[in-house]
């Protein structure tokens, strides 16, 4: 059991409670406190979850890459499992970025998707890259070879994160809004406060789901070991 166990400082029930409180608070702020955007009106409210989910997805992919590096460095079997779960979380949040982004695009631009928009296509590339991670992982038998291949692949993918993030800033057509510039966020007051709460809520929710999934995976691995013993 030592191979795939680790003590965490924050207990899971506390994390789940924090997620519930923060998500509820974020939704209350989004729908009852945050003002309507002067340009987009009510539809701008998608921004709070869309952007927060996008940053959470980036954080999950980056976390997965970090754990992959730890695995390659220390050959820790738990780091491989943590990397896999983080990438899985990233993919779930990536799906939500694409869905919420498409809905917002339909209201704002009149299209569900625009292939001419580099930032959309680059995020899709990042998403598909990590989707292929699972094809690679499950095409190899469990063991050190699978863990090493997955770790190297997850590390390569991290390069796409800054590319995808910067694409919004370097794109020639500025249809996609830029909310964070060199001088800070392009908004303030309740919009900024609501965004910060939504971002915290999504990060804590993602971490909670990560811990729940990881617990299940660890029990699964331990059961397989016991079954073979």
């Amino acid at each position, binding site marked *: 059991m030592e191979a795939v166990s680790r003590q965490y400082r924050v207990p899971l029930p506390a994390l789940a409670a924090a997620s519930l409180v923060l998500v509820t608070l974020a*939704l209350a702020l989004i729908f009852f406190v945050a003002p309507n955007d002067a340009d987009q*009106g*009510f*539809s701008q*409210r*998608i921004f709070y*979850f*869309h952007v927060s*989910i996008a940053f959470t997805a980036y954080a999950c992919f980056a976390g997965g890459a970090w754990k992959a590096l730890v695995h390659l460095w220390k050959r820790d079997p738990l780091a491989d499992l943590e990397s896999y779960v983080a990438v899985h979380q990233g993919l*779930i949040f990536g*799906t*939500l970025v694409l*869905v*919420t982004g498409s*809905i*917002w695009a*339909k*209201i704002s631009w009149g299209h569900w998707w625009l292939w001419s928009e580099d930032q959309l296509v680059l995020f899709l590339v990042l998403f598909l890259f990590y989707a292929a991670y699972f094809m690679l992982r499950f095409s190899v038998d469990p063991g050190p070879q699978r863990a090493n291949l997955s770790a190297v692949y997850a590390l390569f993918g991290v390069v796409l994160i800054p590319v995808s993030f910067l694409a919004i800033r370097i794109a020639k057509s500025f249809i996609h809004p830029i909310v964070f510039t060199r001088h800070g966020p392009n908004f303030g007051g309740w919009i900024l406060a609501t965004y910060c709460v939504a971002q915290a809520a999504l990060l804590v*929710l993602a971490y909670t*789901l990560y811990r*729940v*999934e990881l617990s*299940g995976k660890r*029990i*699964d691995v331990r*059961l397989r070991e*016991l*079954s073979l013993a």
Partner: protein
Amino acid sequence: MTTAEKYVTAAYCTVFAVVLVYVLIIALKLNRLEREVQALERREAKPAEDERETISVG
């Protein structure tokens, strides 16, 4: 309800639904793990019963 309100509601409902489906899948997986633990416990308990049966009484 305006069109914008409908789209915003759809976006937030999608997020909620995806998280709910994810939690449901995790719950199903935990159920499977529980069944496997029970099967393992039964397997572990069986040899002990066999041992008791092989004790010589004569």
